[in-house]
């Protein structure tokens, strides 16, 4: 009985280190939730895992036909499909993570009201799930590059994990905030897809930021701009990485993550009573 664990239950106040230690303690559950989401996602659909291949690929094809071919969108001297797919790679990770995280509480009502675990696990695991899609998209990207006989700037690839971490922070941070709001105001989930769609157009995914001309600084306010620009610079090697822009994105990511966590923890106490 030397290492007996003692649990103290008190009225909840703020955040303590204990909260983060707890997530570590519950890492197996985090793993299981992520595993469940991945399994279920590819089991429920008829075409299973092909969905993850099909979806980004078709989006790329449609964008290439309409924006690349008809609208003659500039693509910084790279074949447009490659150009747009690099953007989509991170954008889809971001948008599905944001969507998933914000629905993570209302989607797990049954578990929240019956079992205790650190609730932070839910938005985190739903975001982790998207790494699978991301990896699949990455393979598709390589395929497209092979098709166009495009040699990527391999030296810049090391930055990809960093970009993923920044995107992860922004998505989880904002997702946690929205998840808490979603618990109380259920119409958030209807507004969000629309909002994300709008966001796609003010993020340089289908076009290079240069086409905004003197207003391109406006795009810099969007944290995903820095991430996507850096990804293109690193993979396509068409321009040097804009470290200032990336720094802004990283700073924004950390800030959003902190705000999201604080807000999430603050509203956490009544989740089980409201959902």
């Amino acid at each position, binding site marked *: 009985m030397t290492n*007996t*664990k*003692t*649990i*103290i*239950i*008190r*009225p*909840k106040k703020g955040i303590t280190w204990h909260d983060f230690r707890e997530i570590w303690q519950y890492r*197996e*559950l985090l793993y*299981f939730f992520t595993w*469940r989401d991945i*399994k*279920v996602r590819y*089991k*429920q659909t008829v075409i299973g895992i092909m969905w993850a291949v099909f979806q980004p690929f078709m989006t790329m094809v449609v964008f290439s036909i309409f924006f690349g071919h008809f609208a003659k969108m500039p693509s910084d001297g790279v074949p447009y499909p490659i150009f747009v797919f690099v953007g989509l790679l991170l954008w889809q990770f971001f948008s599905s993570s944001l969507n998933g995280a914000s629905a993570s509480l209302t989607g797990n009502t*049954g*578990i*929240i*009201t*019956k*079992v*205790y*675990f650190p609730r932070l696990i839910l938005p985190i695991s739903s975001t982790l799930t998207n790494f699978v899609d991301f990896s699949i998209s990455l393979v598709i990207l390589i395929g497209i590059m092979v098709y166009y006989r495009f040699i990527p700037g391999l030296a810049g690839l090391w930055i990809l994990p960093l970009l993923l971490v920044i995107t992860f922070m922004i998505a989880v941070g904002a997702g946690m905030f929205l998840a808490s*709001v979603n618990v*109380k*105001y*259920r*119409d*958030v989930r209807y*507004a969000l897809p629309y909002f994300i769609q709008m966001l796609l157009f003010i993020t340089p995914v289908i076009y290079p930021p240069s086409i905004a001309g003197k207003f391109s600084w406006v795009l810099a306010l969007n944290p995903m701009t820095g991430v996507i620009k850096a990804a293109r610079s690193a993979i396509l090697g068409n321009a040097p990485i804009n470290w200032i822009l990336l720094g802004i994105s990283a700073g924004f990511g950390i800030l959003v993550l902190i705000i999201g966590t604080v807000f999430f923890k603050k509203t956490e*106490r*009544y989740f*089980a*009573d*409201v*959902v």
Partner: protein
Amino acid sequence: MTPIIEVKNISKKYNISHQQGSYVALRDVLANIFYHPLRFAKKKVTAPFKAKEEFWALKDVNFTVQKGETLGIIGANGAGKSTLLKILTQITPPTTGEIKLVGTVASMLEVGTGFHPELTGRENVFLNGATLGMRRSEIAQKFDDIVEFSGVEKFIDTPIKYYSSGMQIRLAFAVAAHLEPDILIIDEVLAVGDAEFQKKCLAKMKDITQKEGRTILFVSHNLLLIQNLCKKTILLEHGELKKIGATEEVINTYIHNRSNRKPESSNAVSLPNENNTGNIRFTGIKISNTEDSGVIKSDAGLKIVLTYSSDYEKPITDARIVINIVSESSQQIVLRLDSDVTSESFPADLQSQGEIVCETESINLAEGKYFADINFVIQGTSRNLVKMACEFEVGTDLTAYKYKTYPDKSVCDHVIKYSFKQNG
């Protein structure tokens, strides 16, 4: 010895408005702020001063549990049992107070928490186990036992959406039964499955509770189960701890409080007959088993004690008592106890006040709620009926029950012996 669970001054408050507004549209809130910015600002400013409608689901609950004890928690609906469990399991935090739990805790508030219909039985065992707080290695180690206990080996690699609900429950209970925490918190989870599986669960529960060092908190409406499994019990009433102590004592208090409600004064009926004029009224009704203690079991005899008073001067002649036992689920009379049928034991002249006792042999009724509809008739009077209903509950001890199925709930095809008598 320091207690393993220490509950100090636990209270939980709900704001009623908060509870109602589970679907608040952000759109409406924003529109409101936009159209009536002043009204919104005013509301925000004055809100802290306004009396909110509050509801205390729990008020100042204190108790301690020693290591190895099995504590039962009973109380009527809305007494705060579930809230207490939710606080103990950390699902919702208390408003005030503190709880100290020493050791690992696992809870079973529901059978099959986190089950996903698309996943196979095998996958769900792991998912459910992890949700309930088991380590992956632990689940893997116990996997074969779990599957064997559930009896669904054949379908373990089939998605559970193809399972019958009984199979799902069996699998879920099998996982839960293999939890091995220091403290186990269980809500009513045995109200499902067929009689045979329930028997198995009960045996397992007894096994768990009697294992060295396991501490269990057990909430149930099934008093018999509590009586069988728990030595100590607490009774909650309107969020307050009403009584804590030996299970039998607490159950008796609970049954007594619930079924022995004082009849209302409107039950006093004037029954003038040839010899007497005046009022007669019931002052008390008590329903218990013939031992006068604990739960009324299916194989127990019923004892109904009626206390009455009247301002009659002479004994009451030609009185008759008819008690109809009505099943709540079927709304049918399952037993009829008539003093005229057993007239040899019932006195011809009743004293003007006193007690009438009706005792039966084994009632053989199914588990459930019943009403005793009591009619007091004096022959040859103009108004000759005093009607009074009283509720009681019957429990079936499945571990001792020899049949595979329950006694039938809707019909009564058996005749039992009973007797009426008068106490002084």
